[in-house]
């Protein structure tokens, strides 16, 4: 269902693009084509910005062999939504920044954007964002994963993400003792 809807959206974007030609075409590992605004791509992805500047964009679809169609669709969707979102007050007044936080909280639409994703889709998107050098999307997706870990014990986290425990019982006990201050619940 979701894929079909996304496909329709992508086609729609393609129609607009023909009139405009301010877009680039990206090709997923499984050969599907996606259009994205050149401006948004260059602004949000350091890798795409480099390719656009270096002229290595293929009009028939730039090959992104590392990214599957579902993840690429989400990337393109994010770029389009980002281009249409109203800049937050923080962004407008960025001339004077009192903010020392290394990470700015996700905006409401970004939260919704990642909340609807399945585990698999979320992790695929993290990898795609990392590969394309999309710092903000990487922040937002990592934030979502950290939210999924919050408030859980190590055992529960292992269960959620299927993390293999490679410790012996003795090693684990040693860690618990060494980091007692972190395990002690106030």
């Amino acid at each position, binding site marked *: 269902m979701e894929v079909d809807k996304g496909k329709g959206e992508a086609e729609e974007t393609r129609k607009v693009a023909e009139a405009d030609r301010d877009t680039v075409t990206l090709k997923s590992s499984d050969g599907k084509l996606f259009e994205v605004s050149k401006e948004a791509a260059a602004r949000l992805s350091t890798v795409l910005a480099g390719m656009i500047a270096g002229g290595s964009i293929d009009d028939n679809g730039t090959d992104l062999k590392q990214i599957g169609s579902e993840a690429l669709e989400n990337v393109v969707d994010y770029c389009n939504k980002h281009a249409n979102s109203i800049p937050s007050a923080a962004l407008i007044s960025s*001339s*004077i920044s*009192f903010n*020392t*936080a*290394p*990470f700015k909280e996700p905006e409401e639409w970004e939260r919704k954007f990642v909340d609807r994703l399945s*585990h*698999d889709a979320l*992790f695929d998107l*993290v*990898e795609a964002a*990392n590969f394309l050098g999309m710092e903000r999307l*990487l*922040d937002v997706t*990592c*934030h979502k*994963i*950290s939210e999924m*870990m*919050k*408030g859980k*014990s*190590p*055992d529960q*986290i*292992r*269960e959620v*993400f*299927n*993390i*293999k*425990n*490679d*410790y*012996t*019982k003795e*090693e*684990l006990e*040693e*860690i*618990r003792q*060494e*980091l007692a*201050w*972190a*395990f002690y619940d*106030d």
Partner: protein
Amino acid sequence: MRRFFSCFSSRSCAATTVSDPDITDGDEEDDIISRLPDDVLSSIVSLLPIKEAARTAALSSRWRRLWASNPLVLDDIDLILSNPRHVSAVTNTVTSTFIAHPGPFRSVSLRTYFSDADKDKYVLRHWIRLLAAKRVQDLALSNIPWAGLDVLPPSLLRCRSLQRLRISDWRFFPGGDGDSMSGGAAVLLPRLRELVLSRSVIQEGDLERVVAGSPRLRTLVLVMNCGVPERVRLRSGSLWCIVFWQSVVEELAVVSAPLLERIILQTSALPCGIGRDGSRMRIKITAASALRALGYLNPNHHQLQIGDTVIKVGKKVVPDAVVPSVKVLALSVQFGVRSEASRAVFRFLECFPNIETLHVLVIE
């Protein structure tokens, strides 16, 4: 603890695969999170509250290595909120974290518990030594506003890795107090880019030394500082923006600041009685060839001096007494006292012949 961390570097993800049925399950399913690269997992860990971040060391040997190699981000409000009744436990957690983590510390924000004078002074000095040794980059130190202004340990200036420093409700160590504050233009904080002083006390000479000793300082912000220092004299080859946010000094003198582009003045109320007895903040611009934006200037609060010329109503315009580089000017005016104030406004305008944007704020 040291022994514990010493094993991080040598440890590889090898060997002892354990299948403890109580802890691991679903071996046949994919471990989807572990296929992400180290730097991505590191940033996920850094987004967790400090205790939870440390606990990820118990997930697997890879995660143990990640936590220790991750630049520390610590905001003690997380600890206080999770433990409002036992502030001393928070202090101990901060100390344990600083000792346990090998550094660097990317961002540390401390707002608590400096009230129990003697004991806490020792704790704070200890922390600052650790912060310096483990290369803190962004540091915010906030004292309790009602505790009286304690004196910051001078060793703060040994944190040479600092890039951003925010100080709230502290008294800066008086200069000449021995500890490294002598010697005029010595470089103190070679990486500092932003300095914010809120409701704090710093003497004129100390501020000058810190600014002069920070060759990369771009932004200096004074928030709700009243009358101390009496004068701010700027000599900086790097400063780009200075902000007085509800802050007042007797004199701001731009002596030599070739890169200074912005002087931001925001004074909505009348702090410290400025303007009431006719005293005004003197803004003296001597050498600021790059100055592009200035304001809000208010003729009732500010007196302008360009070079040697004090700008006054009724005095003729001197050709030298202009700042041609200014493109954006902001004025705030009380029209209740119309005649004098509006003439002063026009007099101000004459000093900036190349304005492209003018902001006017009318105050009731």
